[in-house]
């Protein structure tokens, strides 16, 4: 417990002690010592971080870049025409639209306008986001590999399509530890009752990292963290007496078992969480002004707006990584109606979060990321009519925005072709995105490694480059 690298909160049994041990463990330890020193790529952070915290607003299902950010008049002009083979170039489609007898181009049915000093195009669906474009770093050239949800979401969140790899937040927890002793360093918030493409525990899992690095879900309702509340009949006094007894038992047991001493700390932290979590989840002390900013939805626990507000409260308490999920962007059919609903649910609160963080002086060192797992096709899945269309999954380009945390504000980066099909300029692969985000957190993505099954694993696998153009 005296380990200088030990992170309070979720104890990070750092490798330092083991390194010291290994140093005197002889030849067998010689390689071990080298491995351990290299395990995390040396002391973290690797360089001065620009961001201390991350909030990832994950838009699950794949929002249509064409209807939100990637303005393509050509699609509107050529609405209904067949997708030219010169554009598609035989690339694979999903089995949902791949067998259609035709692939008609579908222009966005929404008005676009340029906003702010950056003159960024934003569709009428996102009026609040449009107002803050000068704070945003919009990337229109994010591309990925997988074409189905499960592998694509898994890839975005873990850097691999395969199961069993740690999620982004788990990597941060492992690499940087906690900045807060009373709350989990990696919190997960899911919009309630949304439906849509299912989410899964694995997305915020620790993979092969120790389980303590996994995300902890904060849920709307009485038990914001699983098992947080005392059982009926156990009040604060009882709990305190239990803790006292446990401390005494363990102090005595500690003579023969080090693990017993660790328990004292573990239980003390658990008891602290029991008060700190309800505190952070309780928004009753927020002024009315907060709800004017985030919208009245923010009063209803479990909404996207409420989660954005909760995220801000967690960040204020120095939680390292907050991962939001908002399902429902998977609009294979009936896109125009469905996307309106999605935008209405998220636009205001997303923008409010950025504004709120800025005015509290937190945006400077907080990275906000908004985006989905892939983009959507420029052709209509299903029938294209005068007022309706659907769009299938499209891994070759999507739009994402970031704010704060040393990202260059008022930026629009990357170009797609006239069809928003292929990237014309400045592609940003998911690995590049990860490398860039880690860079802002003071981490060299090639040095944040964990040895598992004989191999040094990274969030960025064997690829990824920091996109310098995006950095302020």
């Amino acid at each position: 417990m005296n380990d200088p690298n030990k992170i309070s909160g979720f104890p990070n049994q750092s490798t330092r002690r083991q390194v010291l041990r290994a140093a005197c463990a002889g030849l067998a330890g010689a390689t071990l010592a080298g491995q351990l020193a290299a395990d995390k790529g040396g002391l973290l952070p690797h360089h001065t971080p620009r961001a201390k915290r991350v909030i990832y607003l994950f838009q699950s299902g794949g929002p249509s870049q064409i209807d939100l950010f990637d303005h393509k008049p050509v699609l509107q002009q050529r609405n209904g025409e067949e997708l030219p083979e010169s554009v598609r170039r035989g690339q694979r489609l999903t089995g949902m639209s791949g067998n259609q007898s035709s692939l008609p181009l579908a222009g966005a049915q929404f008005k676009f306008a340029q906003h702010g000093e950056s003159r960024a195009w934003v569709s009428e669906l996102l009026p609040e986001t449009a107002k803050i474009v000068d704070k945003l770093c919009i990337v229109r050239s994010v591309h990925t590999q997988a074409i189905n949800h499960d592998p694509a979401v898994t890839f975005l969140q873990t850097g691999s399509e395969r199961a069993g790899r740690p999620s982004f937040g788990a990597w941060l927890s492992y690499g940087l530890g906690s900045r807060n002793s009373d709350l989990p360093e990696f919190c997960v918030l899911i919009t309630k009752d949304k439906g849509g493409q299912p989410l899964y525990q694995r997305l915020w899992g620790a993979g092969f990292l120790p389980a303590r690095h996994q995300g902890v879900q904060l849920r709307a309702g009485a038990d914001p963290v699983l098992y947080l509340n005392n059982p009926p009949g156990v009040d604060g006094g009882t709990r305190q007496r239990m803790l006292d007894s446990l401390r005494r038992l363990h102090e005595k047991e500690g003579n023969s078992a080090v693990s017993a001493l660790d328990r004292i700390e573990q239980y003390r932290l658990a008891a602290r969480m029991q008060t700190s979590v309800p505190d952070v989840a309780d928004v009753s002390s927020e002024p009315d002004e907060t709800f004017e900013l985030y919208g009245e939805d923010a009063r209803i626990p479990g909404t996207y707006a409420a989660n954005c507000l909760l995220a801000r409260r967690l960040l204020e308490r120095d939680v390292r990584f907050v991962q939001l999920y908002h399902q429902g962007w998977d609009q294979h059919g009936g896109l125009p109606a469905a996307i309106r609903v999605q935008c209405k649910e998220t636009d205001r609160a997303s923008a409010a979060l950025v504004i709120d963080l800025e005015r509290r002086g937190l945006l400077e060192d907080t990275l906000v990321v908004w985006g989905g797992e892939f983009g959507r096709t420029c052709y209509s899945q299903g029938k294209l009519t005068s007022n309706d269309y659907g769009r299938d999954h499209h891994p070759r380009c999507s739009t994402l925005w970031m704010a704060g945390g040393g990202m260059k504000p008022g930026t629009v980066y990357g170009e797609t072709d006239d069809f928003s099909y292929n990237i014309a300029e400045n592609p940003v692969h998911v690995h590049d995105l990860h490398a860039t985000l880690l860079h802002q957190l003071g981490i060299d993505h090639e040095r944040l490694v964990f040895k598992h099954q004989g191999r040094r694993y990274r969030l960025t696998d064997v690829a990824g480059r920091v996109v310098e153009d995006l950095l302020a």
Partner: protein
Amino acid sequence: MDARYLVRLSAMAFFNLILALSPQVGPPPVDFTRDIRPLLSDRCFLCHGPGDTAEVGGFRLDLREEATEDFGGAAPIVPGDPANSDVMARLRHKRARRRMPPPESKLEMSESEIALIERWIQEGAPYAEHWSFVAPRRPQLPGDQGPADQGPSAQVDEWARDPLDAFILARLESADLKPSAEVDRAAWLRRVSYALTGLPPTLSELDHFLAAQEEGAYGKELDRLFASPRHGERMATQWLDAARYADTYGYQSDVDRTVWPWRDWVIDSFSVNQPYDEFLTWQLAGDLLPNATREQQLATAFNRLHRQTNEGGSTEEEYRVEYVADRVSTLSTAVLGLTMECAQCHDHKFDPFSHEDFYGLAGFFDDIDESGLYSHFTQSVPTPALDLPTPEQEQRALELEEAVVQAEARVAQALADSTPTTDIAGQLQGWFPFDSIDAATPEPTEDGKPGTPGPKERLRNLAQEDKHGLAHRELSLAEGFQGQALSFGGDEPATFPGVGEFHRSDPFSIGLRLWVPRNFERAVVLHRSRAWTDSGSRGYELLIEEGRASAALIHFWPGDAVRVQTKQALPLERWVQVTLTWDGSSRASGLKLYVDGQLAAVDVVRDHLQRSILGGDIKHLSLGERFRDKGFKGGRADDLFVYGRELSAAEVARVVLEPAPPSATALDAEPSELQTALEDLRAARRARDDARGGVLQVMTMSASITDRSTYLLERGSYLSPSHEVEPHTPAVLSPFPPGANKDRLGLAQWLTDPAHPLTARVEINRLWQLAFGNGLVSTPEDFGSQGTPPSHPELLDSLALDFIESGWDRQAILRRILLSATYRQVSTQSASAHEIDPDNHLLSHAPRKRLSAEMLRDGVLFSAGLLVEKIGGPPVKPYQPAGLWQEKSGKVYHPDKGEGLWRRSLYTFWKRTSPPPSMMIFDAAKRDVCIVKRAATSSPLQALVLWNDPQYVEAARKLASRSMRSGGDARQIAGQLFRRLTSRVADEEELAILLQLQQEQHSAFLAEPEQAQALISVGESALDTDLDPSELASWTVVSQVMLSFDASLSTP
């Protein structure tokens, strides 16, 4: 001794142990296997290692001949001459850009490591084959001087209880360590009880053992534990992690699946101590054993437990090859201790396994008739699937089959007696001339107002006016064979509700005229099904595949279906009449295709229809389109007819010539003898088939595909098959047994060949890990060059050989380990051990281990008297916080009522995308992929589970009431509580802590009786109304404290 060494050595703390290890003068030679290969592998092999990595580095350091080769005046390694070895120059190069490892690798070599390599080169740079790829050799017993045996040392004689102890002691002595004292009996019994049964000893078991004086009392306890049915459950739990066992498919939809019979087989296998070689053989190739029993086939489900997907739009082949790859990875991790999955995309960077080797192994698992996607719309068990009838079902099936056989005989007789007729009017359900599309009258709305016209319009049925077809608006009429015909765009169907709804036992015939505009690779002409891969194609269908007509009846494609395909392609751009007839037999021979009235020669593509072709939201017969399938774009259809019986060849020939439907003349006639016999046969088959539908099915391996070739996939991608690869095992391992087939059975023979270098070692390591927490190889998932070399290589080999010689008897090995002096040591670490061997690699004391998630929960339930001990059966759903499933996927978790709440944890329903949180918090495996070692972490969330999960709150109450009921005063109650959970007797200080808490709580609850009542009402188990609420509540709090006590959460 070279003075330079002394200087260098004294500068290095790393060498302390080496010096300690060598009482003789001077350092022992560097050990390549232990010291050098791991270093070279870790820092150099990425570019100078096996496979194509050397293309980067130019030469390989894993091969001595390349490492010592002269590359134009300089050799990387000059044995005996570090000064002239290029490796040394590069390792110590002053310029970072020239130094190795290069900066961009982000790897470093410390000076002490470099010095080690230098010394190794000085000593002649001896290489050795990688230890784990060489078959184990019988080592000399430490202290044994060979043929002139002077017997083991005095200390060995005194301390050791088993030969294995001699190996441990030798390493301890050479490190100047001593073994620790023997643990007390109660602690040992707690250890072995958890190790072998996953549960603590009962109080009477403790008492009995403590009192037992006789010789062999320890062994008798092991006998008892091995014989306990709980042993199978305990051992199975560990294997379920390796087998990535779960009750759902995984991936995002994560639908439930039935695989628990396999889990029960595993329990049985451990209970009867099935030899490990047989355990493996059954799981890998049970179906290929001669006269394979049902159990042997069931065991093969092991290779189907990987995740599977049904996500809409996924490519079937992409996932099928992924499943095959998972089988290879799982086999290599769980059984071989190898990281073969690295070679899925390229040559292995560290071990000598090529990209080709991966697909060589994949070839063994490519032999089953499976789909890469399971069905979204139906509950079909993905094929191949094994029927698991109950004895009653099995008996019934025999009777029903006999009835079918008899009915078939009566039909044959009746056919022989009757004169062939061409009564083409009988049982005609539909005759659609497609000469017009009639505007549909809009259906009125519910409140009686006229409805809006729908998108579909009518197609006349001349056989039954009210059963008209519906044409989507997009469909048009075009010139027909006679009059008009339907013309298809490929995206919209014509549908025929109420027509053609046939069971597989119903004979039927369907025909139509087609205009095929081009040579379709695939086009859906006609079907009665919900979808293609999204429903496993369940139903029946007539397709064009590579230009040929293809008819099928399908339960789940491809493994449960019949399909025939015409040998000739259909003619293009002219009218052709195609009729399919079906006799209800469920055999391909009963499915006929006629082209222009002539019986067509066909290839039988599948002949294995076992289950229903109905169900799964099938709505109607359709033409020209299917959900997410390729439609009949540009094609035309005319004169569709549907019969509820099998037309004879003569009848087909006549119908084809008919311009209009025959009038129903024969309906009034008495049914002929043949008709009656046919109807009886249909009924007999229906009865048989319906009964079959109720039989439980489990996915298994069943070799049926002989013509599938396995390809090397570039970068592991299904889109990039390179060349065909024959099934083979990696050349660097033991040879494939001569004469063995290149199939899964041959693979099993290879694995269990005594000459195999890995199989026995990996299993021994698993057993050692079970006992000590760490294996002799602390990286059980990697016995390759990046793994940690064994702490006691001779011991590992010795036990591996003993294991093979024992007939792969796991219990025999476990017994030796658990009775050994090594295992019997106390777990306290001495000061010298802390200094010399802090991580206890040398086992100078026993480990204190935290209980696994399962042991923890099961042990508490058991101590509380709540555990419902019932072996096997469907999974159960204990308490779980509400809403966890719902918020992710919309599904609802309904906890069981009654015993399902208190079964052993290996029966808990395992949902991959939302595994039980209280188990996950205690480091249970997620079961997405094969795991052979769990971490034991510590987090505040664990405390919250122990304190607040109703499972534990309820158990605390039951523990309290149980202890109170067994009588005695408060001291005795507290003492019993303590002992039940920790298996040891509380001392005075501990008792005092508990008693003080109980008194304080008692007062508190007396003051607030409603609090007491609330606490003792948690959980579904019976309330303890006979006990004083405040007292019970106070003891419940004491129990809760005890549940969180480290001694309750660990083995001593």
